[in-house]
């Protein structure tokens, strides 16, 4: 929310702080200043000037040739392009040699053949808003040549204060002033220049009131707590006086006319939105607070045609909706320069209703922002009187002495119990009753205490929404005491009952393992193109990525492509993340799996002068996959050739991982070039993806085995098999035949080619035998080897080379 430094400090008697100090104080109270803008910055060269005569430019229709009095001794000729420049007008002016806030230096110029000595300025050019449709016309009686900043009291700083969502009461200068004050929560408003006494009487009724011939009634008491309506007839709508315009500009609002400006002034001062209607355009005349009819149309002030529904609260006249309550008025009934009679609304609408309507219609407005954050339910009368003061002083007119007050649900102040013992329990240090009172009373709370350490605290109406419980008061005590004044003594603590989740431990180990193997951890967002997922977002950020990923590999492959496109040839990435599936279990919205994925391409090892460069291949991938499976699932899970659903592999070059129960847990292999967009020089790309156990057992205790005390004996066998015969099949038969003393089998050579029949290959196995009980004899080992050769012959029809 934008505030004016001067406006705020003027409301707090005795407060003398610089804008920087003010920002610091607000921050420590919980309302940091996001941004501060000093108006005087760069405005030093600006002066007030009067146009003595504005005449046509001889060579350009759209330009005006002005004679300007800038108190420089002689009148200056200035060429001006603004449509609103007129003889006698007073405007901000930069003489030749001066500098604009954006750093532009004004030079003597010749525009379409005429000399121009300086520049008359629009609000935007001098940083006072976004308006660039014409010059900023000043209405006061200023001496040409005076400094613009001094003349307009612009020695001000606009601050954007971040007010938290619970503190609707702070969305005004008075609200913030209260936080900065000592006393009892009362903030006195400065007098409005030239304002008459506002002499009105409220005519109150829960449902229906008639004043000055206008019926004001409610059909929706649940959504509108209070609705005040005043009538001012015979106003002169026109530009506001400079003091009012400058106040609005100081908080970033654009002046419109004196009536609308008055409502905006009160909004910024007191936080109460008001709405002014052109009374002559209200049919009846009648003002009805009711729910909209289904499908009812309205054209709001922003020029949009909108359709309403029955959940929305509106203000209507006898015929039609003229205002979406608390959000935005309509085009036809708004106050214009033709308006003579004004009906002024000041109401309290239900926050949730305004919020729902604002969201449904998508209209953000200053009024809605306040209403949804709770407007002071006790503040309508004061705000209405304040607004009337300004209208009467700036637009004149006659105020009808009666004000309609449709008030179905008067606000009852809440009383909250506060135990001093609880204050100490929660805050960790004791507070005396008197200390608590001293902290709360300046905020408008009223406290009565009893001897047993309990206090009854009456909550001021403007805090009605956020202070309803004891803990809300304790927060106020802590905040007003100052967070920085609490000690920071670290005390002993009891250990918690929650074990470190084992999946985190497993993930840590996987990271260690993969980093040691040369892989870098990547992080990618879970949003992917539609074909890559099945869990869809209702409100995706972009239509290109409307689903959550079912696999991690595609996201990682995009990162690999990104790297290759930047000339990174050796890319090894892994990621630990969640995959999302449309298999709802219990009440969960989606089924999630923790996973690990790896992609790799490039060389197997860094270049070295002693060796050639070898590319990573499927065997590197298979080895990595096996080690990852051992780390995550252990023994029962197996890696075997096979396809994996969703894995973009080259047929015949993929492996699958199956659990002990034959469930596919993942897999990997060579990525199909068709699934990749990589430069022509790129080599083979490998990838794997594996589901992790969601609740892994990390308590596996290793039991050390005694080292063998007898020697091992090795025997090598080369087996010639048809190329179709899987090595694993040969190994399985050999293992089965070898007997109990087999310690290990290793394939140490695979050969195909010269010397072997076409369609066959040789697999060289090294068998290692060892008995835990004795040294094996040659004879025993030879017998075991013969068993292997025989069984291989019988079962696979293979022939053992050189045996």
């Amino acid at each position, binding site marked *: 929310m934008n505030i004016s430094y001067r406006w705020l400090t003027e409301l707090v008697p005795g407060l003398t702080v610089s804008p920087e100090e003010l920002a610091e104080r607000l921050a420590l109270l*919980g309302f*940091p200043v996001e941004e501060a803008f000093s108006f005087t910055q760069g405005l030093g060269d600006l002066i007030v000037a009067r146009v003595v005569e504005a005449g046509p430019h001889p060579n350009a229709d759209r330009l005006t040739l002005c004679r300007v009095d800038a108190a420089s001794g002689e009148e200056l000729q200035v060429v001006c392009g603004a449509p609103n420049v007129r003889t006698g007008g007073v405007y901000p002016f930069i003489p030749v040699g001066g500098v604009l806030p954006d750093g532009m230096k004004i030079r003597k110029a010749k525009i379409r053949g005429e000399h121009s000595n300086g520049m008359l300025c629009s609000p935007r050019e001098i940083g006072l808003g976004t308006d660039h449709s014409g010059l900023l016309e000043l209405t006061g009686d200023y001496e040409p040549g005076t400094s613009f900043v001094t003349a307009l009291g612009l020695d001000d700083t606009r601050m954007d204060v971040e007010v*938290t969502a*619970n503190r609707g009461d702070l969305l005004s200068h008075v609200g913030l002033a209260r936080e900065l004050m000592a006393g009892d929560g009362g903030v006195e408003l400065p007098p409005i220049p030239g304002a008459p006494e506002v002499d009105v009487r409220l005519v109150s009724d829960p449902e229906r009131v008639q004043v000055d011939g206008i019926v004001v009634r409610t059909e929706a008491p649940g959504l509108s707590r209070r609705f005040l309506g005043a009538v001012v007839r015979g106003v002169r709508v026109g530009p506001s006086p400079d003091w009012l315009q400058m106040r609005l500009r100081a908080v970033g609002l654009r002046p419109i006319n004196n009536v609308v400006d008055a409502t905006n002034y009160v909004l910024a001062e007191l936080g109460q939105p008001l709405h002014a209607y052109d009374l002559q355009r209200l049919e009846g005349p009648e003002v009805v607070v009711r729910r909209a009819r289904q499908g009812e149309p309205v054209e709001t002030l922003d020029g949009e045609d909108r359709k309403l529904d029955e959940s929305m609260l509106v203000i209507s006249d006898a015929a039609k909706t003229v205002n979406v309550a608390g959000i935005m008025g309509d085009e036809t009934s708004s106050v214009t320069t033709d308006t003579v009679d004004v009906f002024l609304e000041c109401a309290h609408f239900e*926050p949730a209703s305004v*919020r729902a309507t604002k969201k449904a219609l998508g209209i953000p407005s200053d009024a809605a922002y306040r209403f949804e954050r709770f407007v002071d339910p006790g503040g309508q009368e004061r705000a209405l009187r304040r607004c009337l003061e300004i209208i009467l002083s700036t637009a004149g007119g006659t105020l009808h002495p009666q004000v309609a007050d449709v008030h179905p649900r008067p606000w009852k102040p809440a009383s909250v119990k506060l135990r001093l013992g609880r204050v100490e*329990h*929660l*805050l*960790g*240090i004791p507070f005396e009753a008197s200390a608590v009172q001293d902290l709360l009373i300046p905020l408008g709370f009223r406290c009565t205490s009893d001897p047993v350490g309990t206090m009854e605290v009456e909550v001021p109406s403007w805090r009605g929404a956020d202070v309803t419980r004891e*803990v809300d008061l*304790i927060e106020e005590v*802590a*905040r007003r005491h100052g*967070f*920085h004044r*609490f*000690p*920071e*003594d*670290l005390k002993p*603590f009891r250990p*918690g009952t*929650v*074990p*470190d*989740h084992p999946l985190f431990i497993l993930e*840590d180990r996987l*990271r260690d393992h993969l*980093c040691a193997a*040369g892989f*870098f*951890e*990547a*992080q990618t*967002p*879970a949003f992917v193109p539609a074909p890559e997922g099945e*869990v*869809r*977002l209702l*409100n*995706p*950020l972009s239509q290109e990525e409307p689903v*959550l990923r079912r696999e991690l590999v595609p996201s990682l492959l995009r*990162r690999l492509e*990104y790297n290759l496109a930047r000339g990174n040839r*050796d890319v090894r*990435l892994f990621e630990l993340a*969640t995959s*999302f599936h449309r298999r709802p279990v219990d*009440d*969960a*919205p*989606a089924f*999630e799996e923790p996973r690990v994925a790896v992609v790799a391409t490039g060389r197997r*090892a*860094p270049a*070295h*002068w002693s060796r050639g460069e070898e590319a990573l291949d499927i065997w590197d991938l298979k080895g990595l996959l096996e080690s990852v499976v051992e780390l995550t699932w252990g023994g029962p899970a197996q890696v075997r050739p096979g396809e994996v659903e969703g894995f973009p592999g080259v047929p015949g070059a993929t492996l699958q991982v199956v659990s002990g129960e034959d469930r596919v847990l993942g897999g990997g292999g060579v990525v199909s070039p068709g699934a990749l967009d990589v430069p022509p020089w790129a080599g083979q790309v490998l990838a794997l993806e594996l589901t992790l156990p969601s609740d892994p057992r990390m308590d596996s205790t290793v039991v050390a085995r005694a080292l063998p005390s007898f020697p091992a004996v090795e025997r090598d066998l080369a087996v010639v098999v048809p190329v179709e015969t899987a090595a694993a099949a040969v190994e399985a038969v050999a293992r089965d035949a070898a007997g109990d003393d087999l310690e290990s089998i290793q394939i140490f050579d695979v050969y195909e080619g010269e010397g072997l029949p076409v369609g066959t290959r040789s697999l060289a196995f090294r068998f290692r035998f060892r008995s835990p009980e004795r040294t094996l004899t040659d004879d025993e080992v030879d017998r075991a080897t013969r068993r292997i050769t025989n069984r291989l012959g019988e079962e696979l029809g293979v022939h053992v080379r050189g045996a």
Partner: protein
Amino acid sequence: MTDVNPLVAELRSLEAEALAELERADDALALDGVRIRYLGRKEGRISLVLRKLGQMDPALRPAVGAEANRVKEALQSALEGRTAALEAGAGTGSTTDLTLPGRRQWVGGRHPVTRVMDEIFRIFGDLGFTRARGPEAETEWYNFEALNTPLDHPAADEQDTLYLQGGGLLRSHTSPVQVRTLQAFEPPIRILAPGWVYRRDTYDATHTPAFLQVEGLVVDEGISFVDFKATLAEFARRLWGPGTTVRFRPSFFPFTEPSAEVDVKRVITLPDGSTHETDWLEIMGAGMVDPNVLDAAGVDPERYTGFAFGMGPGRIAMLKYGVTDLRTFFENDIRFLRQFSEDSP
């Protein structure tokens, strides 16, 4: 001159043969072949000669035995010498140019944001915290209602939420893990809840729609605002280093009361050795657990109190490592990641 014993002569000629072979052997395998051929216990040629000793005149045996030992020792030492020479010259000729680069292996590394998270875990681990986890696709109840955030309150807007078709949403913070933990375990609770969270933010230098968060929760009897401040200030000083100033500033979160923003001011040592104090940096949102949250999770708020906090390790990584754009962490450019490899400091 006595005749040279024929066995001694045989030994001497074997010695000469073996030495010649050693000279020709130019790798370890060949050397080992020579060793086995001549010095092998069973089939070695010298052993074979010695086996003939049995048929000899016992008087001559000592001389042959002595000669056999001398030859063995000579060959042994020649073998060792040759092995050492070969090792020293391994493939480079006779001298080794040790200025050539050594042979290294690839070493990978954790993602910089993981590094920061690990550091957070380590510090809070010292302070007795363990890690808890929960689903990323959540229900409105766990993400909002159980956390004292009614959906019709503007506070729900501040985390513009991503909803799933068919019901549910992507958690906008890891706070649902706090509720799930409170439901499943008895106090004392001292947990961290790290994980991915999602908000409907478009990508820019400081926002991404998915980001990692670490939240923490302490619930026990007698936990006060003083414990809250002490624990988080201790953490902040350990994370940001000595000289760090910590500031607690009032704020608002629906699930904590009182609520605070935690800011730090760091002292940075510049390369020239001078020090420089940073501006206040916002690093954490935190507060005392709102009684409504305890209530919703079935914990008696009169008996138990606690505090909770949340931070973005991505933002901390930006500050710590001098990264100016959050999106850099999602690019995963190897040249960037390599700066965080496990063999880097």
